[in-house]
Each structure stands twice: as C-alpha cells, then as structure tokens.
C-alpha cells in the first residue's frame, strides 16, 4: 500500500507503531512528532528527518500523549497512569493515577499544569514538577458528569467533552466549577473537541459525520454565529454511509482546520467562510489523528484503523507527514462579496 501513494499522501514515516495509533502531536519548538499507540508505546520521531528518535514502553495501550517541552512529554495510559518521559535519558516517572484508563492528556503552558481526563469521570490537574512523589503532583480532581472523551486547551480555557454529550468549559484559574456547562449541539457521541487558535470557541465532532462550530461568547450575537455541518459521508447507490469524525486539527497560522474521518479522507475547511478548501486523496484506512506542525508547513496524518467496526482485519497503521501548500489551507477571499 505504501508504495502506491507515496507522493499524494505525503512521506510515510519509517518504523510506525505496530498497532492502532491513538494520537500524534507536533512539538511547539521543532518538527519532532510524538505518537502514542495501542502497541503500548510512545514514539518520538523527527518528522523532517524521518528518524525514530525514541521509543518508550508502557504497561498498557497508550491513549494520548503530549509534549512538555521539546525534551520531555506526558502520556495517558490504559493502565490508569499518567507518565512523564524525559526523551534524552529515557527517564520515566509516574505523575499519578486515575481510577480508570486515562484517555486524554494536555499540558497548559499558561498554567504550567498537566490536565488529564479519564473514564473514571474525573478531570485531574497535575503539577509536573512534583517530582516522582506519587500523589504530590496532583493539584486537583474535578468530577465530570460522564467519562471524559476529549479535552482541548486554549489560553486559560479548557473544554471537556464527555460521554452523554456533555461539554464543560473551564477557566484553568478557577477549576472549582465549570465556567459553562453545555450539551453538545450534535445528537451523537462526541469524538473530538478542539479549541480555535484565536480562543473564541471550539469545534466538536461526533461519530455521525458532523462537526459543530461553537463559541464561548454567550451573548445572543455570539451564539448566533454557531453552526454545524456534515462531512465524511458517502452516498452510494442510494445508501448513505456516515463515518465518525475522529480528528480535528487547526492550522496555527490561518485558523482553518483539517478533519479526519473513518472514511480515510482528510478535509480542510475554512470555518469563517463555511467552505471546504481542500480534500486530500484517500488514505488506506481511518484517520485516527491529525496534527499541524508549529509553523503549519507540515501535517501529520495517522492512518490507523480506529476499531469502529470492532476487531477486523485492516490496513497496516501508518503515519504520513505531508508538506502543506499554502493554497490548501489559506482562506480564500469570498468569490462575491456580500452586497
């Protein structure tokens, strides 16, 4: 498969994870790429050099990972632990534990805290400096209405999407209770939530081929801007197939965003003008995760079966890094300005 689409899909990284890819992220400082996988590892790649820089083994499948700085990172593991890794030395410490598998982890530069969400229906904040002392690192635990499925950060805002279509918006400076409690505008299970880079709202995707664009501003004018749209669907011979939207990634420069679905497509959208800017050629299997590099010149695409149809044979898991052409992500001026 890899031989078939090397150019159109981007450069495939060598030494990919041997099982499903749960997430991948570019560093904020370099073109390093951190990848977590069901094969119980977190891998560090140099995406521009296509080199596997490090591999860190876990006690269970890893559901999420993120960078701390360029030399260390965090991981969220099914064995309930939150770990911190120093890449150069391979040093590992357990930051703490949840009561159930941890499914998402974020590091807030603003607060200097690690935020994890778990299926134990809690959100926990950790101080990564709490060196190796088991519970010393814990800053606070905040009960959620349901199991946490996806979280996203922008500035001091934290958006938490849980099962049961709950969405809580927190201010990191005051975590005692949510700033806003919402229900997802979409009717189906939330797959992914990502904040706009400009901090005015968030995009939320569901298992039913749909993405909602929401705004934090609660005023009528603010809420009037919100909308939802359909994507990642296929209509064949009268049969409509709707695919889950697994991944959303915002372009750091233009604020446009890419979505990835179980249909294997990656679409780029302009949320302000409500237009699709680009669709890349189909990837071998579901898009499990997406990440733009810090300058937005590269897009990492995890083509990895996300288990949406249970255990079945599937294409091998692969990571593609594609160079982004400006025309693919730059918002286009309106064809015809509004009268």
């Amino acid at each position, binding site marked *: 498969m890899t031989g078939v689409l090397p150019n*159109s899909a981007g450069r495939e990284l060598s030494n990919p994870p041997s099982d499903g890819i*749960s997430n991948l992220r570019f560093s904020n400082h370099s073109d390093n790429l951190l990848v977590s996988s*069901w094969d119980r590892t977190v891998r560090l790649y140099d995406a521009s050099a296509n080199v596997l820089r490090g591999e860190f083994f876990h006690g269970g499948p890893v*559901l999420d990972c993120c960078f701390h700085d360029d030399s260390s990172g965090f991981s969220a593991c*099914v064995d309930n632990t939150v770990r911190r890794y120093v890449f150069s030395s391979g040093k590992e410490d357990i930051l703490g534990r949840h009561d159930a598998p941890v*499914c998402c982890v974020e590091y807030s530069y*603003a*607060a*200097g805290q690690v935020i994890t969400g778990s*299926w134990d229906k809690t959100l926990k904040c950790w101080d990564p400096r709490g060196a190796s002392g088991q519970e010393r690192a814990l800053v606070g635990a905040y009960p959620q209405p349901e*199991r946490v*499925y996806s979280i996203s950060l922008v500035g001091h805002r934290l958006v938490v999407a849980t*099962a*049961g279509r709950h969405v809580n918006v927190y201010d990191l*400076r005051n975590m005692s209770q949510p700033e*806003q*409690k*919402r*229900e997802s*505008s979409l*009717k*189906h*299970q939330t797959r992914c939530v990502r904040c706009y880079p400009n901090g005015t709202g968030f995009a939320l995707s*569901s298992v*039913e*081929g749909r993405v909602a664009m929401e705004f934090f501003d*609660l*005023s*009528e004018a*603010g809420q*009037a801007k*919100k*909308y*939802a*749209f*359909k994507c990642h669907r296929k209509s064949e011979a009268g*049969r*409509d*197939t*709707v*695919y*889950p939207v697994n991944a959303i990634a915002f372009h750091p420069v233009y604020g446009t965003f890419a979505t990835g679905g*179980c249909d294997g497509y990656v679409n780029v*959208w302009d949320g302000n*003008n*409500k*237009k*699709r800017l*680009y*669709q890349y*050629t189909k990837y071998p299997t579901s898009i499990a995760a997406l990440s733009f590099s810090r300058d937005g010149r590269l897009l990492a695409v995890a083509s990895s079966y996300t*288990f*949406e*149809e*249970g255990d079945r044979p599937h294409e091998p898991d692969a990571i593609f890094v594609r160079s982004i052409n400006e*025309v*693919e992500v730059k918002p286009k001026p309106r*064809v*015809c300005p*509004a009268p």
Partner: protein
Amino acid sequence: MSNLQTDQLLQMETTCGSLLYELQIIWNEVGESDAERDKMLLELEQECLEVYRRKVDQANRCRAQLRQAIADSEAELATICSAMGERPVHIRQCDQSAVSLKEELKAIIPQLEEMQKRKCDRKNQFLEVLEHIQKISNEIGRSTDNPSKVVVDETDLSLRKLEELHQQLHALQKEKSDRLKQVLDHLNTLNSLCLVLGMDFKQTINEVHPSLDDSEGTKNISNDTIERLASAIQRLRKVKIERMQKLQDLATTMLELWNLMDTPIEEQQIFQNVTCNIAASEHEITEQNTLSVEFINYVEEEVSRLEDLKASKMKELVLKKRSELEEICRRTHLVAEADGAMEYAIEAIESGAVDPASILEQIELQIARVKEEAFSRKEILEKVEKWLTACEEESWLEEYNRDDNRYNAGRGAHLTLKRAEKARAIVNKLPAMVDALVSKVTAWERERGIEFAYDGVRLLSMLEEYNILRQEKEQERKRQRDQKKLQGQLIAEQEALFGSKPSPMKLQSGKKGPRMSTGGASSRRLSLGGAMLQTPKPDLSHSTKATPRLRPNKKSDLLSHNQDDSFAALSAGRRGLDVAGLPVKKHSFNASEIESPMKRKPFSPVSSAMLSKVNNTTNFLEDLNKVHGGTLQKTLPSNNTPLTTPSKLSTVTDDDENRTPKGMPIHMPSTPSTISVHMQTATTPAPATRPTTTATVLFGAKTIEEEYEEEVEYSFEERRAGFVLPKTLIKTIVQA
C-alpha cells in the same frame, strides 16, 4: 792485566821485529838501496801512526757519546722528577769518584726506567680523573673546550694537581647529584600537576626532554632541561591556578543555585568534591583530575543545567505571580494590564534581555499596589456586589411578574413566592442603595483623584445608566398602567355593548414560548418545550436583566417584546435568502438544531412515527428552499406544528446544498481539488441523515450497538480496551 797487555805488546813487538828482520833479509836478497829501505820504513811508520790516530779518535768519540747518554738520562730523570713534583732521587756523584762512565750509565738507566713507569701510571690516573670530569661537565652542559679529547698537562703531574683534580671531580659529582635531585623534584611536581590537571605526564616531560621519560637511562640534567622543566611547571601551575579559580567560581555559583533552589542533598552529594575545594588554595588541591578539562566541563554543564533550571523556575514563578496578579485583579474587578505585557516579559526573559528577578520584583510591586488598591476598594466593591445581586433579583422579579401562571400551585411554588417576597423588599431598597453607592464612589474618586473602574467600566457611569434605565422603566410602567386603564374603560364599554369580557390572559399568550425556554432552566420544561438550545444560558439574554451592561439587549428586547423569537430568526432567514441569489449561498445559523420531538438517548432507535414526521418537516423544508424567494415568510406560519416551533424552522436550511436551484457548489469530489466546497450545514443530524430507508451510520459493530443501546454508550476506545462501567454506575445512568 797490564802484564797481559805488555805480553801482547811484546808479542806484537816480536812479530813486528821478526817482520822487520824478514824484510831486511828480503831486502838483502833483493839488494835494495838504503834510500829505498829508509823510504819504505818511513812509509811503514806513517801508516802505523795513521792507524793509531784513527783508533784514538774512535775511542774519544765513544767516550763523548757515553757522556752524552748519561747527561741525557740525567736530564730526563730530572724532568720527570720535577714533573712528578718529587725530589730527584739521583744525586750525581762526583765524577772524581773514579767510576767509569759506563758504570755510571748502567747505574742511571734503571732509575730512569723506574721513573718513566711511575710517570706513565700517574698520567693514566690523571687521564682517568680528567675523563670523569669531562663526562660530568658534558652532562651538566658546561664543557666549553673540545669535548672529545682529554689533554693532560705533562708538565704537571704532581700529586697536588691530582688532588686538585679529584676535588674538582667531587664537586662536579656533587653538582650532578644535586641537579639530578632537582630534576626529580621537578618531575615529581610536574607529575602531581599533571594528575590534578588530568594531563598526560609522559607526554609533558617528553616535550621537555625525551630522556626524562626514560626510567632506566640517564636523565638529561643540563641547565637548559632544568630551565625548561621549571618553565613547564610554571606554565602548568598557572593553568592550574586559572582552572582552580574557574572551578571555584563555578562551585560558588553552584552553591548559590543550590541554596536558591533547595536542591536535594543527594544531588548535591555528587558535587561534594567540587564544593569542598571552594576555599582551597592552589597547593591544597591535589586530588587526581580535580582540575581536568573534562571535570571542569562536567561541572560547567551542571552549573548551566542548574542555571537553566533556575531560569525556567524563575519563569514559572513570574507566570505564577502574574496569574496571581490577574486573579487579584479579577477578584477585585480591576482591569489588569494588557495581556501582551506578559508574553513580552516572558520573551524578554527567554532572550536574556531582562533579569527575571527584576520582572518578578516588578510584578511583586504591582501585586502589592493592586492589593493596596483592592483594600481601598473593598468596601465599595462589597456594596457593588450587593447592588448587582439586588439587580439580579430585580430582573428575576420582573420576569416572574410577567409570568401569568406564577400563582399556579406547582412543585416549589411556595419557594418562588418566598423569593419574590424577598426580592420585592430588596428592590424597594435599591434606590437608596444606589444613592449610597454613588456618594461613596464620588467620595472615593474625590479622595483618590481617579475614576473608580469596575471591570474597566467607570462605576459611576454604570450607576448613572442604571438610574436612567430605571426611570425609563418607570415611565414605561406608567404608560402601560395608563393603557391598561384605557383598555379597562374600553372593555367596560364593550361589556356594556356585548356583555362579555375577554380574558386578559390571551393578550399575554405570545410571551409564553420564550419564557418556557429561558426562564426556569428546569430540565423538565426543556425536554417538553423543545427548546432548540439545550444550554439555557445563551437565552438568558432574553430576560430583561436589569444590569446596566445588558442594556442594549434589553432595549431591543423591549422593542420586540411582543413578538416571539421567530421574528429575529425570520429576518435572519430572509437575510439568508437575499444572498441566495448569489452563487455563494449563505445562511444564518442562528440556532443550530431542530430538537427532536422527544428527548431521545443518543443510540436509541427513532420511532417510525416520529421519523416520518420529521421527514415531513425536512421534506417540507426542502420544498421550501426550492420555492426560493419570499415564500418562506408565507409558509412559515402554516408550519406551526406543536412539535417544532417556527423559530427553529426558520433558522434551518435544507440539508443538502446541492438541491439549491443554482446548483453551483460542487458536491464533494473524490479527487483532491482546490475548489472550495460549501459545508453541508444542515442542522438536524438524526432525522435528516437517517431516513427510514438505507442510511447506515458507522457507530461500530451493530451487535455491540444493539447490546448497549438500551444501557450505556461506549466509545471505540472503550470498547477496544474492554472498558465496562461498574454495574452500579450503569444502573444509575439507566435510571437517570
């Protein structure tokens, strides 16, 4: 003896006489003349004389030679004796002692030979000593004359001279051993220096002189070598001092950093050997490799690591302080400085342009200042807080007063009543409160000479606005009262004419809808009322909240008060249709979703009845859009089904953009394209995409879905990880 000689002479004389007789006979016989005879005899005599004279000369010469030999020997003997510094052994006996010359010579020769032998021995001794001297001199590097040849002064071979030479030799030997010692000392010093500095000793001394490295052979001890050794030591010592100072500087920095950051002892222990030398003088540092380049680099690295750590900690501290400051500002409703200042400060720290400590100090100062200000504002702020809560209560009360069903006994009605009672009391106190606040704030402002800002807005202006608003409201109320009175009169007149009295309720019925969706926020109402937005908060703006900042909203609300939301939404819809004539079709998506008639769990099946209904509505909508133009307005009222309020419908566009008459947007090409495509912004996910026919949604294995659909939803990851909620939890969820 003499007898013998005389005998011989006699014999000879006889032979001569006989010979002469014989000659006389011969002559007689021959008859020789006498003259001839005489002549012959004379000849004979002359010849004999000649022979004698020759012999005497010979003997004389021999004697002279002998004398010469004796004299020579004596002279030589004398020379040797004088050279050896001895008194001449041979004192010449008087010649008169009648010792023959030959005897004399015989006596002197052995003496001479003896002396010559002694001289030779002595010379050898001299040679030996001189050779030693020469050698040592060479080693020391002092030999100035030809080093290869040893010359002995033959004229002075005295013992004294020999003694002198021996002394010289001793002196030289001593010097040599001294030098050797010095060299060894130097080498020792050098070795210890090299150890400390982590340098290769052998190489160092090889550079000075190759012989020094040789442990077996002799070491070069010349002045030059010693000098070079000394200079090497000097040089290394200088290096050592330099490095030591560097190391001590590093150690000092390290100690400071440790102190600053409370570095754990274990971490400090590793560098104990560095810090223990912090006050050591140069000669006290003897431990191996303490000053090697690698070690210093190692320490340097540690220091830079600590410094980095410090920098990051400082940064964190700055951030923390900053957020503390922001927190205080937020709490006291002060407006913090521009957000950019923070990023700027961090950047400055990172680039090293600014000392983090100074920024920290600055922030501390700021915090102190803000705290001080907060303290001065505290009293007023408390009052403002009270005022704001009062305002909230007021707005609630207004809302409540508009509710015509407020006296209907329901669950919790007594509580609401109580609240209303309290609220009324508070509202009555409001004007006084505002006045007090105004005077307090004015006093404060006068005292300080600055405006009292609340979240960036001048409090006084807020209060003024509030007062104006209040007056407006008052007038409005008065106007309404008048109107009511007028109406009452009218009704009375009508009653007089027709005899029936319309219920006042009907007039108000239009307001019911919005109140349902906005007011109570009770979930029961929401699910029944089919509010389009599940979050009640956004709609709060509908309520006439009396806080001054919401005033613009409130005003518009007042204007369109008797119209329900559909108006605004409708206008939005119309706006959308205006644009529809253009290739880029735009819709306003005011409220995004149509609420399905019943509250439905995400994975629960959609009842066919409901589906058909929803299908109808969507179809209807599609038609609607096809009709395109001003008809929307017309059809809307007819769509007034109990299931969906018009407001929602009006905001919904059709579910597929392709059906717009223009047909301009391109439908999802499967090949990549840069042509932008419209988003399919239909807003009713479930009904629209799940027609009763064939759509399948990839939620996962169907069986699993069925299995869980009545119970708990699970994400793909949870299913894959085999994660199951504990039973009790499931129960609670199902019950909920």
